[in-house]
């Protein structure tokens, strides 16, 4: 069935550097994508979303890029801070359904 997966299970970056977390999806009908952040012992928290009619969307220190040709999206975090340490999930959904499919997650470790 359709699935959303991530390339890297763990990413370690130096404080102040930029982080890039990648996600691949297999369902070409998916048209809505969300990035979540999950800190230890907590529920996921919405970071940023993007619809398939866009290639790029920026938030505060975060940017999501969507490449529909290769079914890939990425989350870029600028000037990574210790508070960014968490597990990041991408999720996809197809319009007309109400089901979000989550990837397995990438753990981001920020090194001081």
């Amino acid at each position, binding site marked *: 069935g359709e699935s*959303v997966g991530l390339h890297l299970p763990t990413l370690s970056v130096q404080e102040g550097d930029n982080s890039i977390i990648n996600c691949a999806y297999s369902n070409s009908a998916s048209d*809505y994508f*969300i990035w979540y952040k999950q800190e230890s*012992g*907590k*529920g*996921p*928290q*919405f970071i940023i*979303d993007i619809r398939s009619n866009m290639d790029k969307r920026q938030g505060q220190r975060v940017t999501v890029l969507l490449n529909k040709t290769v079914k890939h999206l990425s989350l870029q975090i600028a000037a990574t801070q210790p508070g960014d340490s968490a597990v990041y*999930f991408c*999720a996809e*959904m197809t*319009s007309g359904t*109400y*089901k*979000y*499919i*989550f*990837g*397995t*997650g990438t753990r981001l470790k920020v090194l001081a």
Partner: protein
Amino acid sequence: NAGVTQTPKFRILKIGQSMTLQCTQDMNHNYMYWYRQDPGMGLKLIYYSVGAGITDKGEVPNGYNVSRSTTEDFPLRLELAAPSQTSVYFCASSNGDRDHTDTQYFGPGTRLTVL
């Protein structure tokens, strides 16, 4: 607003026991979801609801039941607990805005162990 609340926070069950995980939201959201998260894994959708009186199966519904008698509450029922149901369970709600941002708000989770 309290957001999404879940009870209990932790629970240990014996095989074959039953229990209900409670979920309540005070944001007047129509859409509510139940997910389970196994260690080191992403979230898998168990059941969801698009409004009071309407529920539907997600990816992994077997062994679970839900009801949605009010907009606020979306309890998840385990009838015959099995070790495979050991997991962390998250409830979420959203406004279901398909034209703009459909932010899902998650509860703090219930950690369930079946022995």
